[in-house]
Protein backbone atom coordinates (compact mmCIF):
# COMPACT_ATOMS: atom_id res chain seq x y z
CA UNK A 1 0.00 0.00 0.00
CA UNK A 2 2.74 2.43 0.98
CA UNK A 3 4.69 1.56 -2.16
CA UNK A 4 1.66 2.53 -4.29
CA UNK A 5 1.16 5.65 -2.24
CA UNK A 6 4.74 6.75 -2.83
CA UNK A 7 4.21 6.51 -6.59
CA UNK A 8 0.93 8.43 -6.53
CA UNK A 9 0.65 12.11 -7.17
CA UNK A 10 1.76 14.01 -4.06
CA UNK A 11 -1.32 15.61 -2.53
CA UNK A 12 -3.39 16.19 0.54
CA UNK A 13 -4.34 12.52 0.98
CA UNK A 14 -0.68 11.52 0.98
CA UNK A 15 0.07 14.26 3.46
CA UNK A 16 -2.60 13.02 5.85
CA UNK A 17 -1.47 9.38 5.65
CA UNK A 18 2.19 10.29 6.11
CA UNK A 19 1.17 12.53 8.99
CA UNK A 20 -0.57 9.67 10.79
CA UNK A 21 2.38 7.31 10.20
CA UNK A 22 4.82 10.00 11.34
CA UNK A 23 2.76 10.56 14.49
CA UNK A 24 2.98 6.82 15.22
CA UNK A 25 6.78 7.01 14.87
CA UNK A 26 6.79 10.05 17.15
CA UNK A 27 4.92 8.06 19.82
CA UNK A 28 7.39 5.17 19.43
CA UNK A 29 10.28 7.60 19.91
CA UNK A 30 8.65 9.15 22.97
CA UNK A 31 8.31 5.61 24.35
CA UNK A 32 11.97 5.02 23.58
CA UNK A 33 12.98 8.23 25.36
CA UNK A 34 10.91 7.26 28.42
CA UNK A 35 12.68 3.95 28.74
CA UNK A 36 16.09 5.22 27.65
CA UNK A 37 16.06 7.58 30.63
CA UNK A 38 15.06 4.72 32.92
CA UNK A 39 17.71 2.45 31.35
CA UNK A 40 20.31 5.16 31.81
CA UNK A 41 19.50 5.49 35.51
CA UNK A 42 19.35 1.73 36.02
CA UNK A 43 22.56 0.93 34.11
CA UNK A 44 24.42 3.73 35.89
CA UNK A 45 22.99 2.49 39.17
CA UNK A 46 24.30 -1.02 38.63
CA UNK A 47 27.68 0.23 37.45
CA UNK A 48 28.00 2.34 40.60
CA UNK A 49 26.82 -0.49 42.90
CA UNK A 50 23.44 1.01 43.76
CA UNK A 51 19.87 0.17 42.76
CA UNK A 52 18.61 3.13 40.74
CA UNK A 53 14.86 3.80 40.63
CA UNK A 54 13.00 0.93 42.32
CA UNK A 55 9.87 2.42 43.87
CA UNK A 56 7.45 3.66 41.22
CA UNK A 57 6.12 0.81 39.06
CA UNK A 58 7.57 -2.26 40.74
CA UNK A 59 11.16 -3.27 41.53
CA UNK A 60 12.35 -2.12 38.09
CA UNK A 61 10.93 1.37 38.46
CA UNK A 62 9.07 0.96 35.20
CA UNK A 63 6.82 3.96 35.72
CA UNK A 64 9.48 6.28 37.16
CA UNK A 65 9.94 8.36 34.01
CA UNK A 66 6.19 8.53 33.38
CA UNK A 67 5.78 9.95 36.86
CA UNK A 68 8.59 12.42 36.21
CA UNK A 69 6.94 13.63 33.00
CA UNK A 70 3.60 14.06 34.76
CA UNK A 71 5.34 16.03 37.48
CA UNK A 72 6.92 18.29 34.85
CA UNK A 73 3.52 18.84 33.27
CA UNK A 74 2.22 20.25 36.56
CA UNK A 75 5.19 22.55 37.22
CA UNK A 76 4.63 26.25 37.23
CA UNK A 77 6.14 28.00 34.25
CA UNK A 78 8.26 31.06 34.95
CA UNK A 79 9.80 33.36 32.39
CA UNK A 80 12.24 35.83 33.97
CA UNK A 81 11.32 39.48 33.66
CA UNK A 82 14.56 40.36 31.91
CA UNK A 83 14.33 37.54 29.38
CA UNK A 84 13.71 38.18 25.70
CA UNK A 85 10.25 36.65 25.71
CA UNK A 86 9.58 35.68 22.05
CA UNK A 87 13.03 34.10 21.65
CA UNK A 88 12.76 32.43 25.05
CA UNK A 89 9.52 30.72 23.99
CA UNK A 90 10.77 29.87 20.51
CA UNK A 91 14.11 28.32 21.55
CA UNK A 92 12.86 24.90 22.80
CA UNK A 93 10.82 24.44 19.62
CA UNK A 94 13.82 25.25 17.42
CA UNK A 95 16.00 22.89 19.43
CA UNK A 96 13.48 20.05 19.27
CA UNK A 97 12.11 20.17 15.70
CA UNK A 98 15.41 19.27 13.92
CA UNK A 99 16.01 16.37 16.29
CA UNK A 100 12.80 14.75 15.08
CA UNK A 101 13.30 15.82 11.46
CA UNK A 102 16.59 13.95 11.08
CA UNK A 103 14.87 10.63 11.82
CA UNK A 104 12.86 10.96 8.58
CA UNK A 105 15.70 9.56 6.46
CA UNK A 106 16.99 6.77 8.67
CA UNK A 107 16.26 3.30 7.26
CA UNK A 108 15.35 0.96 10.12
CA UNK A 109 14.92 -2.04 7.83
CA UNK A 110 14.71 -2.37 4.04
CA UNK A 111 10.91 -1.98 4.30
CA UNK A 112 10.54 0.26 7.33
CA UNK A 113 11.73 3.66 6.32
CA UNK A 114 10.16 7.06 5.90
CA UNK A 115 11.85 9.37 3.38
CA UNK A 116 14.27 7.65 1.01
CA UNK A 117 16.01 10.73 -0.34
CA UNK A 118 19.18 10.65 -2.43
CA UNK A 119 21.18 12.93 -0.15
CA UNK A 120 20.07 11.27 3.10
CA UNK A 121 23.40 11.58 4.89
CA UNK A 122 23.88 15.21 3.90
CA UNK A 123 20.31 15.95 5.03
CA UNK A 124 21.02 14.43 8.44
CA UNK A 125 24.19 16.49 8.92
CA UNK A 126 22.65 19.73 7.66
CA UNK A 127 19.48 19.51 9.74
CA UNK A 128 21.21 18.37 12.92
CA UNK A 129 23.33 21.53 12.74
CA UNK A 130 20.20 23.64 13.26
CA UNK A 131 19.88 22.63 16.91
CA UNK A 132 22.92 24.78 17.73
CA UNK A 133 20.81 27.82 16.86
CA UNK A 134 18.13 26.81 19.35
CA UNK A 135 20.75 26.29 22.05
CA UNK A 136 22.44 29.66 21.49
CA UNK A 137 19.02 31.31 21.33
CA UNK A 138 18.08 29.80 24.70
CA UNK A 139 21.35 30.92 26.23
CA UNK A 140 21.10 34.45 24.91
CA UNK A 141 17.42 35.10 25.50
CA UNK A 142 17.53 33.95 29.14
CA UNK A 143 19.59 37.04 29.92
CA UNK A 144 21.49 35.11 32.55
CA UNK A 145 25.28 34.86 32.83
CA UNK A 146 25.36 31.12 33.32
CA UNK A 147 22.96 30.52 30.46
CA UNK A 148 24.92 32.74 28.09
CA UNK A 149 28.21 31.04 28.98
CA UNK A 150 26.62 27.64 28.50
CA UNK A 151 25.11 28.62 25.17
CA UNK A 152 28.41 29.99 23.85
CA UNK A 153 30.30 26.93 25.02
CA UNK A 154 27.71 24.70 23.38
CA UNK A 155 28.05 26.56 20.11
CA UNK A 156 31.86 26.42 20.18
CA UNK A 157 31.83 22.71 20.99
CA UNK A 158 29.17 21.77 18.47
CA UNK A 159 30.80 23.57 15.55
CA UNK A 160 34.26 22.28 16.48
CA UNK A 161 33.16 18.66 16.55
CA UNK A 162 30.90 18.92 13.53
CA UNK A 163 33.97 19.12 11.26
CA UNK A 164 35.55 15.78 12.36
CA UNK A 165 32.07 14.20 12.36
CA UNK A 166 31.40 15.25 8.78
CA UNK A 167 34.90 14.32 7.61
CA UNK A 168 34.99 10.88 9.23
CA UNK A 169 31.85 9.90 7.31
CA UNK A 170 33.56 10.80 4.02
CA UNK A 171 35.45 7.48 4.10
CA UNK A 172 32.12 5.65 4.05
CA UNK A 173 30.86 7.88 1.21
CA UNK A 174 34.04 7.17 -0.76
CA UNK A 175 33.63 3.42 -0.43
CA UNK A 176 29.93 3.48 -1.30
CA UNK A 177 29.90 6.24 -3.89
CA UNK A 178 26.54 7.47 -2.67
CA UNK A 179 24.96 9.60 0.06
CA UNK A 180 21.79 7.49 0.18
CA UNK A 181 21.59 5.64 3.48
CA UNK A 182 19.91 2.60 1.87
CA UNK A 183 22.78 2.22 -0.58
CA UNK A 184 25.29 2.63 2.24
CA UNK A 185 23.68 -0.27 4.10
CA UNK A 186 23.45 -2.54 1.07
CA UNK A 187 27.13 -1.86 0.29
CA UNK A 188 27.93 -3.51 3.64
CA UNK A 189 26.51 -6.87 2.51
CA UNK A 190 29.89 -8.61 2.86
CA UNK A 191 31.92 -6.54 5.30
CA UNK A 192 30.67 -3.88 7.70
CA UNK A 193 32.33 -0.51 7.44
CA UNK A 194 33.52 -0.71 11.03
CA UNK A 195 36.13 -3.19 9.74
CA UNK A 196 36.99 -1.28 6.56
CA UNK A 197 36.95 2.13 8.27
CA UNK A 198 38.23 1.57 11.82
CA UNK A 199 39.85 5.02 12.08
CA UNK A 200 36.78 6.69 10.62
CA UNK A 201 34.58 4.85 13.10
CA UNK A 202 36.61 5.91 16.12
CA UNK A 203 36.67 9.57 15.03
CA UNK A 204 32.96 9.44 14.23
CA UNK A 205 32.07 7.91 17.57
CA UNK A 206 34.08 10.41 19.62
CA UNK A 207 32.69 13.32 17.62
CA UNK A 208 29.15 12.01 17.92
CA UNK A 209 29.41 11.81 21.71
CA UNK A 210 30.60 15.43 21.65
CA UNK A 211 27.73 16.45 19.37
CA UNK A 212 25.28 14.81 21.75
CA UNK A 213 26.76 16.88 24.63
CA UNK A 214 27.15 13.75 26.69
CA UNK A 215 29.82 12.91 29.24
CA UNK A 216 32.84 13.18 28.82
CA UNK A 217 31.98 16.16 26.59
CA UNK A 218 29.07 17.68 28.51
CA UNK A 219 30.75 21.03 29.20
CA UNK A 220 27.82 23.16 28.03
CA UNK A 221 25.71 21.67 30.83
CA UNK A 222 28.40 21.19 33.47
CA UNK A 223 26.31 21.14 36.65
CA UNK A 224 29.07 22.10 39.04
CA UNK A 225 30.35 25.16 37.18
CA UNK A 226 27.44 26.41 35.06
CA UNK A 227 24.55 24.91 37.10
CA UNK A 228 22.86 23.58 33.97
CA UNK A 229 24.21 25.74 31.19
CA UNK A 230 21.86 27.19 28.60
CA UNK A 231 18.60 26.02 30.17
CA UNK A 232 19.07 27.37 33.74
CA UNK A 233 16.08 29.66 33.45
CA UNK A 234 13.76 27.11 31.89
CA UNK A 235 11.25 25.19 33.95
CA UNK A 236 8.43 22.72 33.43
CA UNK A 237 7.68 21.54 29.93
CA UNK A 238 9.90 24.08 28.19
CA UNK A 239 12.84 22.52 30.02
CA UNK A 240 11.49 19.07 29.19
CA UNK A 241 11.77 19.84 25.47
CA UNK A 242 15.50 20.47 25.76
CA UNK A 243 15.94 17.15 27.53
CA UNK A 244 13.66 15.46 25.01
CA UNK A 245 15.62 16.80 22.06
CA UNK A 246 18.81 15.51 23.66
CA UNK A 247 17.43 12.00 23.97
CA UNK A 248 15.83 12.05 20.52
CA UNK A 249 19.26 12.97 19.18
CA UNK A 250 20.68 10.04 21.07
CA UNK A 251 18.14 7.83 19.28
CA UNK A 252 18.99 9.39 15.90
CA UNK A 253 22.75 9.26 16.39
CA UNK A 254 22.72 5.64 17.56
CA UNK A 255 20.60 4.76 14.51
CA UNK A 256 22.99 6.61 12.23
CA UNK A 257 26.01 4.84 13.74
CA UNK A 258 24.25 1.51 13.19
CA UNK A 259 23.42 2.38 9.59
CA UNK A 260 26.82 3.78 8.65
CA UNK A 261 29.22 1.43 10.39
CA UNK A 262 27.40 -1.60 11.79
CA UNK A 263 25.54 -2.74 8.68
CA UNK A 264 22.05 -1.48 9.57
CA UNK A 265 19.52 -4.31 9.37
CA UNK A 266 21.97 -6.83 7.85
CA UNK A 267 22.68 -9.99 9.89
CA UNK A 268 26.05 -10.67 11.50
CA UNK A 269 26.62 -13.78 9.38
CA UNK A 270 24.67 -14.60 6.23
CA UNK A 271 23.42 -17.94 7.67
CA UNK A 272 21.67 -16.00 10.43
CA UNK A 273 19.42 -14.19 7.98
CA UNK A 274 16.28 -16.05 9.14
CA UNK A 275 16.20 -13.55 12.03
CA UNK A 276 14.29 -10.48 10.78
CA UNK A 277 16.19 -7.30 9.94
CA UNK A 278 14.33 -5.28 12.56
CA UNK A 279 15.74 -7.53 15.30
CA UNK A 280 19.27 -7.08 14.03
CA UNK A 281 18.81 -3.34 13.85
CA UNK A 282 17.41 -3.27 17.40
CA UNK A 283 20.32 -5.35 18.72
CA UNK A 284 23.02 -3.17 17.17
CA UNK A 285 21.16 -0.02 18.13
CA UNK A 286 20.88 -1.16 21.77
CA UNK A 287 24.58 -1.96 21.81
CA UNK A 288 25.44 1.59 20.72
CA UNK A 289 23.07 3.05 23.32
CA UNK A 290 24.60 0.84 26.00
CA UNK A 291 28.11 2.03 25.12
CA UNK A 292 26.91 5.65 25.43
CA UNK A 293 25.52 4.90 28.91
CA UNK A 294 28.71 3.07 29.79
CA UNK A 295 30.78 6.14 28.82
CA UNK A 296 28.66 8.27 31.09
CA UNK A 297 29.40 6.22 34.17
CA UNK A 298 33.11 5.67 33.49
CA UNK A 299 34.62 8.88 32.13
CA UNK A 300 35.27 12.13 34.01
CA UNK A 301 34.39 15.38 32.28
CA UNK A 302 37.32 16.84 30.34
CA UNK A 303 38.49 20.46 30.60
CA UNK A 304 37.41 23.15 28.12
CA UNK A 305 40.92 23.66 26.70
CA UNK A 306 41.47 19.92 26.29
CA UNK A 307 38.10 19.67 24.54
CA UNK A 308 38.82 22.29 21.87
CA UNK A 309 42.44 21.30 21.30
CA UNK A 310 41.54 17.64 20.99
CA UNK A 311 38.95 18.44 18.34
CA UNK A 312 41.14 20.66 16.20
CA UNK A 313 44.62 19.20 16.73
CA UNK A 314 43.87 15.49 16.89
CA UNK A 315 40.50 14.58 15.40
CA UNK A 316 40.58 16.91 12.39
CA UNK A 317 44.03 15.87 11.05
CA UNK A 318 43.23 12.19 11.72
CA UNK A 319 39.91 12.48 9.88
CA UNK A 320 41.59 14.20 6.91
CA UNK A 321 44.32 11.55 6.78
CA UNK A 322 41.64 8.86 6.88
CA UNK A 323 39.90 10.31 3.80
CA UNK A 324 43.04 10.20 1.70
CA UNK A 325 44.12 6.83 3.03
CA UNK A 326 40.74 5.46 1.96
CA UNK A 327 40.91 7.17 -1.43
CA UNK A 328 44.41 5.83 -2.14
CA UNK A 329 43.53 2.30 -1.03
CA UNK A 330 40.40 2.43 -3.14
CA UNK A 331 42.23 3.46 -6.30
CA UNK A 332 44.95 0.84 -5.70
CA UNK A 333 42.58 -2.12 -5.28
Amino acid at each position, binding site marked *: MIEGLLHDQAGLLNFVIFFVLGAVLLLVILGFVTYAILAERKVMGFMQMRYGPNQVGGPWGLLQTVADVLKLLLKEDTIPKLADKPLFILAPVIAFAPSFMVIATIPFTDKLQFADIGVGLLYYIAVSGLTTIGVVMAGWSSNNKFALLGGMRAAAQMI*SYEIPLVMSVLGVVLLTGSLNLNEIVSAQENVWYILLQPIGFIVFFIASVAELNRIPFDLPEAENELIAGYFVEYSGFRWAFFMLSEYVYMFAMASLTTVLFLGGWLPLFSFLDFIPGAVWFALKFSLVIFILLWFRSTFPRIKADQLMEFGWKVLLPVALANIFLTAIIKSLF
Partner: protein
Amino acid sequence: MELFNLYQNNYLIVVVFLCLGVILPVVALFLAKLLRPNVPSEAKYTTYESGNDPFNDSLVQFNVRYYIFALLFVIFDVETVFLYPWAVAYEKLGIFALIEMLIFVFMLLIGLVYAWKKKVLKWI
Protein backbone atom coordinates in the same frame (compact mmCIF):
# COMPACT_ATOMS: atom_id res chain seq x y z
CA MET B 1 6.52 11.22 -14.08
CA GLU B 2 6.59 8.13 -11.89
CA LEU B 3 10.02 9.06 -10.52
CA PHE B 4 9.02 12.66 -10.08
CA ASN B 5 6.09 11.59 -7.89
CA LEU B 6 8.39 9.40 -5.81
CA TYR B 7 10.77 12.30 -5.38
CA GLN B 8 7.98 14.68 -4.39
CA ASN B 9 6.49 12.20 -1.93
CA ASN B 10 9.82 11.66 -0.20
CA TYR B 11 10.23 15.36 0.36
CA LEU B 12 6.60 15.59 1.43
CA ILE B 13 7.52 13.21 4.25
CA VAL B 14 10.29 15.59 5.31
CA VAL B 15 7.72 18.40 5.47
CA VAL B 16 5.41 16.15 7.52
CA PHE B 17 8.23 15.54 9.98
CA LEU B 18 8.88 19.27 10.24
CA CYS B 19 5.18 19.87 10.99
CA LEU B 20 5.14 17.12 13.63
CA GLY B 21 8.32 18.47 15.21
CA VAL B 22 6.69 21.88 15.63
CA ILE B 23 3.20 20.64 16.56
CA LEU B 24 4.35 18.40 19.42
CA PRO B 25 5.90 21.23 21.50
CA VAL B 26 2.96 23.53 20.76
CA VAL B 27 0.36 20.94 21.80
CA ALA B 28 2.34 19.80 24.84
CA LEU B 29 2.91 23.36 26.05
CA PHE B 30 -0.77 24.16 25.53
CA LEU B 31 -1.77 21.11 27.61
CA ALA B 32 0.71 22.11 30.29
CA LYS B 33 -0.79 25.60 30.32
CA LEU B 34 -4.22 24.14 31.12
CA LEU B 35 -2.89 21.94 33.91
CA ARG B 36 -0.17 23.91 35.66
CA PRO B 37 -0.73 26.30 38.55
CA ASN B 38 0.00 30.00 38.16
CA VAL B 39 0.97 31.79 41.36
CA PRO B 40 3.10 34.75 40.28
CA SER B 41 5.25 36.65 42.74
CA GLU B 42 7.93 39.27 42.22
CA ALA B 43 10.81 37.09 43.41
CA LYS B 44 10.06 34.28 40.98
CA TYR B 45 10.71 36.50 37.98
CA THR B 46 14.19 37.67 38.89
CA THR B 47 17.15 36.25 37.02
CA TYR B 48 18.79 33.32 38.77
CA GLU B 49 22.29 33.99 40.03
CA SER B 50 22.94 31.43 42.77
CA GLY B 51 20.73 33.29 45.24
CA ASN B 52 22.45 36.69 44.93
CA ASP B 53 20.74 39.69 43.44
CA PRO B 54 21.83 39.80 39.80
CA PHE B 55 24.37 42.56 39.16
CA ASN B 56 25.48 44.33 35.99
CA ASP B 57 24.31 43.34 32.54
CA SER B 58 24.10 39.63 31.75
CA LEU B 59 25.17 40.04 28.16
CA VAL B 60 28.84 40.17 29.07
CA GLN B 61 31.73 40.70 26.68
CA PHE B 62 33.19 37.57 25.17
CA ASN B 63 36.59 36.19 24.53
CA VAL B 64 37.50 36.78 20.87
CA ARG B 65 38.49 33.11 20.64
CA TYR B 66 34.87 32.07 20.09
CA TYR B 67 34.82 34.24 16.98
CA ILE B 68 38.11 32.84 15.66
CA PHE B 69 36.88 29.27 16.08
CA ALA B 70 33.69 30.20 14.24
CA LEU B 71 35.83 31.52 11.36
CA LEU B 72 37.87 28.30 11.31
CA PHE B 73 34.63 26.36 11.28
CA VAL B 74 33.39 28.23 8.22
CA ILE B 75 36.64 27.53 6.35
CA PHE B 76 36.57 23.80 7.01
CA ASP B 77 32.84 23.50 6.51
CA VAL B 78 33.19 24.98 3.04
CA GLU B 79 35.99 22.49 2.45
CA THR B 80 33.59 19.63 3.24
CA VAL B 81 31.12 21.10 0.76
CA PHE B 82 33.77 20.44 -1.91
CA LEU B 83 34.78 17.08 -0.48
CA TYR B 84 31.28 15.53 -0.52
CA PRO B 85 30.60 15.68 -4.29
CA TRP B 86 34.17 14.60 -4.89
CA ALA B 87 33.73 11.53 -2.66
CA VAL B 88 30.44 10.57 -4.32
CA ALA B 89 31.87 10.80 -7.84
CA TYR B 90 35.34 9.50 -6.95
CA GLU B 91 34.92 6.20 -8.82
CA LYS B 92 34.32 8.04 -12.11
CA LEU B 93 36.90 10.78 -11.59
CA GLY B 94 39.91 8.59 -10.88
CA ILE B 95 43.49 9.36 -9.89
CA PHE B 96 43.66 12.87 -11.35
CA ALA B 97 40.87 14.13 -9.10
CA LEU B 98 42.62 12.53 -6.14
CA ILE B 99 45.79 14.52 -6.79
CA GLU B 100 43.79 17.70 -7.29
CA MET B 101 41.96 17.16 -4.02
CA LEU B 102 45.23 16.41 -2.23
CA ILE B 103 46.60 19.78 -3.37
CA PHE B 104 43.40 21.55 -2.26
CA VAL B 105 43.38 19.95 1.19
CA PHE B 106 47.14 20.47 1.53
CA MET B 107 46.68 24.23 1.09
CA LEU B 108 44.00 24.28 3.79
CA LEU B 109 46.28 22.21 6.01
CA ILE B 110 48.97 24.88 5.65
CA GLY B 111 46.39 27.31 7.02
CA LEU B 112 45.63 25.00 9.92
CA VAL B 113 49.34 24.55 10.73
CA TYR B 114 49.79 28.34 10.55
CA ALA B 115 46.89 28.84 12.97
CA TRP B 116 48.39 26.16 15.20
CA LYS B 117 51.82 27.85 15.22
CA LYS B 118 50.22 31.24 15.91
CA LYS B 119 48.62 29.60 18.97
CA VAL B 120 45.11 30.32 17.69
CA LEU B 121 44.03 26.77 18.48
CA LYS B 122 45.00 27.22 22.10
CA TRP B 123 41.98 27.64 24.37
CA ILE B 124 42.64 29.63 27.51
